[in-house]
């Protein structure tokens, strides 16, 4: 345990978010479920139905029938439970410790939300039920739409997009419908060079061409470059604010005015909304379309890569184009569905990721306006405090106060010692922390993008900073990165051969040589 190093370091309590004591037992592989399979063994038993015991050949024409059953693992319930429990012991998670992945907002996920989502009154409801059977659900969805509109400063919203990228594409299709209704066929969408990869991919799928604008010396959008790119062929601009550098876009009002001047729209990528909850709203900054990542800002669990939820909120002039059906309040009380007049159509098989939406509703009700603002304040406090503790050890590009995350660079370290961002990340795993996002944003050399979130205590943030400093100090003391290059040594597997996985593709058990 590294002792506190500065007088301002809170003393006493130990960091709750450091996972060094995790009991990851043994150094052997976990067999696959297929290797545990014994022909004829089974875990399942099904309901007694009293129905005639017709054979498959009596129920389905012979020409359709499969001759061999689908081969699946045949294991006992005991072995099934042991296998997936052991797999879970080979998995890092928020519940295990701090998860400071930049732009991912891996904050603590409240348990009350999971418990509510498992209730029969929410989980066992069929999505095609007529509205009079699902008034509770419709109320949750209506209220969530209203609360998200208030948080973003927008007029109306859709809850259908299943993740942030789906929300982005939705926003671009709304943009397209808006311009088409004005008889305009605009072809370009502007994106800063610091943007997430989903932005340009979504632009292409939205049928637009990407125009990239550069970043100025202070880390903001380069206004001259933006003005040069703006013309009547531009449908809109996609911005993340705070940006992926963790910096608030100081010129946002000038940007909004310039974009609106040519009749284009502003799209807000909500990946970093956590920083500004209750402080400033995208609508007040001039944005026309906003997507939110409920699995970031509103603490819904990420599930190892999903489910997420990416609602899209819009200003009044875009409301008529929203996807439908939308949950609506009826005059005289009660709730139902309605599809906006000029709707771009459906985005989801049903109503969006409903159980994720429910969790966000709960999070909002637990926090209220003051709680949300406190979330933003402490997220920003943690990020700045962490960043100051890394000054002098790592390079601090665009050196000014940050919002909810900071991007530091290992470029000097790399030149001095050969220690790269990836080595820092892997060595950090040995010190009991998940690593930050590395090599993003692309405009920062050897980038480490760190987002502590507001749910990590000062002790945990301090210990994370100490660990990052320790990694650099070790390399500087040794004069090389040889030791860190060997990391991690304490994890279930050591560094993984990614090139081999791509070169000799084995994507199923049946493709094994």
């Amino acid at each position: 345990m590294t002792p506190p190093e500065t007088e301002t370091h809170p003393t006493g309590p130990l960091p709750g978010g450091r996972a060094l004591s995790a009991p990851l037992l043994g150094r052997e592989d976990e067999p696959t479920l297929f290797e545990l399979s014994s022909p004829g063994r089974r875990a399942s038993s099904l309901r007694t139905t009293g129905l005639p015991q017709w054979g498959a050949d009596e129920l389905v024409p012979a020409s359709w029938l499969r001759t061999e059953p689908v081969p699946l693992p045949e294991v006992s319930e005991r072995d099934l439970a042991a296998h997936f429990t052991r797999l879970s012991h080979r998995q890092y998670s928020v519940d295990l410790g701090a998860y400071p992945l930049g732009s991912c907002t891996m904050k603590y996920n409240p348990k009350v939300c999971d418990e509510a989502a498992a209730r029969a009154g929410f989980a066992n409801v069929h999505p095609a039920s007529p509205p009079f059977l699902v008034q509770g659900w419709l109320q949750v969805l209506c209220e969530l739409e209203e609360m998200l509109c208030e948080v973003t400063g927008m007029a109306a919203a859709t809850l259908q997009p299943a993740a942030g990228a789906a929300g982005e594409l939705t926003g671009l299709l709304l943009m397209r419908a808006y311009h088409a209704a004005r008889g305009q066929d605009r072809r370009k969408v502007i994106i800063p060079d610091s943007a997430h990869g989903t932005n340009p991919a979504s632009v292409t799928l939205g049928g637009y061409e990407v125009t990239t604008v550069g970043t100025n010396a202070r880390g903001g959008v380069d206004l001259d470059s933006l003005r040069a790119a703006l013309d009547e062929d531009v449908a809109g601009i996609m911005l993340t604010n705070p940006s992926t550098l963790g910096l608030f876009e100081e010129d946002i009002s000038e940007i909004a005015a310039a974009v609106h001047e040519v009749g284009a729209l502003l799209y807000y990528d909500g990946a970093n909304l956590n920083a500004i909850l209750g402080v400033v709203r995208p609508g007040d900054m001039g944005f026309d379309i906003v997507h939110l990542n409920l699995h970031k800002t509103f603490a819904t669990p990420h599930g190892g890569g999903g489910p997420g939820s990416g609602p899209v909120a819009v200003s009044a002039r875009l409301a008529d184009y929203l996807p439908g059906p939308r949950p609506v309040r009826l005059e005289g009380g009660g709730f139902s569905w309605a599809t906006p007049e000029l709707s771009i159509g459906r985005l989801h098989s049903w109503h969006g990721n409903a159980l994720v939406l429910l969790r966000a509703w709960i999070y909002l009700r637990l926090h209220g306006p003051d709680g949300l603002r406190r979330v933003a304040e402490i997220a920003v406090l943690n990020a700045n405090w962490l960043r100051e503790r890394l000054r002098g050890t790592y390079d601090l590009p665009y050196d000014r106060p940050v919002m909810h995350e900071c991007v530091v660079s290992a470029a000097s370290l790399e030149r001095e010692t050969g220690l790269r961002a990836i080595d820092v990340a892997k060595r950090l795993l040995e010190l009991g922390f998940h690593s930050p996002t590395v090599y993003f944003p692309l405009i920062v050399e050897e980038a480490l993008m760190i987002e502590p979130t507001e749910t990590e205590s000062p002790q945990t943030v301090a210990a994370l900073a100490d660990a990052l400093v320790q990694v650099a100090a070790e390399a500087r003391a040794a004069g090389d990165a040889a030791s860190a290059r060997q990391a991690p040594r304490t994890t279930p597997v050591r560094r993984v051969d990614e090139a081999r996985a791509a070169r000799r593709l084995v994507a199923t058990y049946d493709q094994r040589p």
Partner: protein
Amino acid sequence: MSAPFVPHTGDEIAEMLGFLGLSSLDELFEAVPAALRLAGGLDLPPGESEADVVDRLDELAGRNRAVGRSLVCFAGAGAYDHEVPAVVRSLASRSEFVTAYTPYQPEVAQGVLQAIFEYQTMVARLAGLEIANGSLYDGAASLVEGVNLSVAATGSHRVLCSAGVNPRWRSVLGTFARGPGHEVTTVPLAGGVTNWAAVAGDGPAGAVVVALPNFLGCLDDVAGARALAEATGARLVVAIDPVVAALLTSAGSLGADVVIGEGQPLGTPLSFGGPYLGLFACRAADVRRLPGRLVGETVDAEGRRAYVTTLRAREQDIRRERASSNVCTNQTLMAVTAAIQLGWLGTAGLAEVALGSARAGRYAHEVLCALDGVEPISTAPFVREFALRLPVPAEVAVDRLAEEGYLAGVAVREGFEGTEAEGALLVATTERRTRAEIDGFAASLEKVIR
């Protein structure tokens, strides 16, 4: 102040601000122009304790009618009431799976990576194809991505989609087709199966899409779709129901190039429609066009077996505007759940679920069609879902039967306007439906239509 998950004490906040040379939290937001800052705070309900919010949830949940003994589920249309045992719920709700992020650091993500690898293997076997991805959002998203893959592979934007494909999925395809400019032709049904002759000889195409079974429950003409795909140079996309697929010749061996489907029947509760699970499988030849994440087996620095997301160069964060899909977050937890559920079922169990669903389907079809005025809309073979013409509008039957304790089915309306199926009641069964429930349902329906 209600920020229940912020651990900082007042003293700690003061110390941290002091270290930064600041005197208030407001000063952290100096970069936000004063004119833009929110005056007066958000207009939201005040924060409440967990106990107070749980009271509200009790009340809201009480205003939903969950399926179960007091509302026996005969509704399907892409969402089915299958058995999910305690062991699956328990393992799938382990917080190591629930609260993990995307496995970007494979050394500490072998649990999720291996579970996805096992899932991919099971889905590929079910589909009868070599490759399956780590999941997409839902059935509709899989349809869109299947079409996008086909268009990219063939260079033709023309899409011939059977009207038997889930109408909500077709609506989603229509929404997303506007971006890349796909031209989607809906091929009509005749007698419950696709009339492929309606579009024969119309020139090249990028994708031919058919559902097996189709939305109305019928075993559709996949051979006709295969022949059309060959004649037009298109990829054949087949939408499966993963339970029914356990009884039928695999879509891959029927000639599918891409297999898509809604994976909800594999361990995910009805959940008011989400989060669900988009199934996606393709041929090895198309793997570099595969949307979403793919987990591959490899070794670590000591030669031990290990798993990692692979062929990453396809993905949006690397390929950016040249990526053929923008998918990042997917539905990993539902994929892990499906792997656990399929592990619980095993070879025999999945076959029994399919057979049980089919037996209930046959029995329900017999007793319901025996009622005066009730007619099937098609004589095509079906397995566990079928559409009935009633002497009353389907919506009326659904509303009245809810009072009798049955969720009677889904009214066929959207996407079937002006067709023989419009206004029919789509009835679905699973292995959970008993003879007594089906007899009771028939008796109540008789009362409602009399």
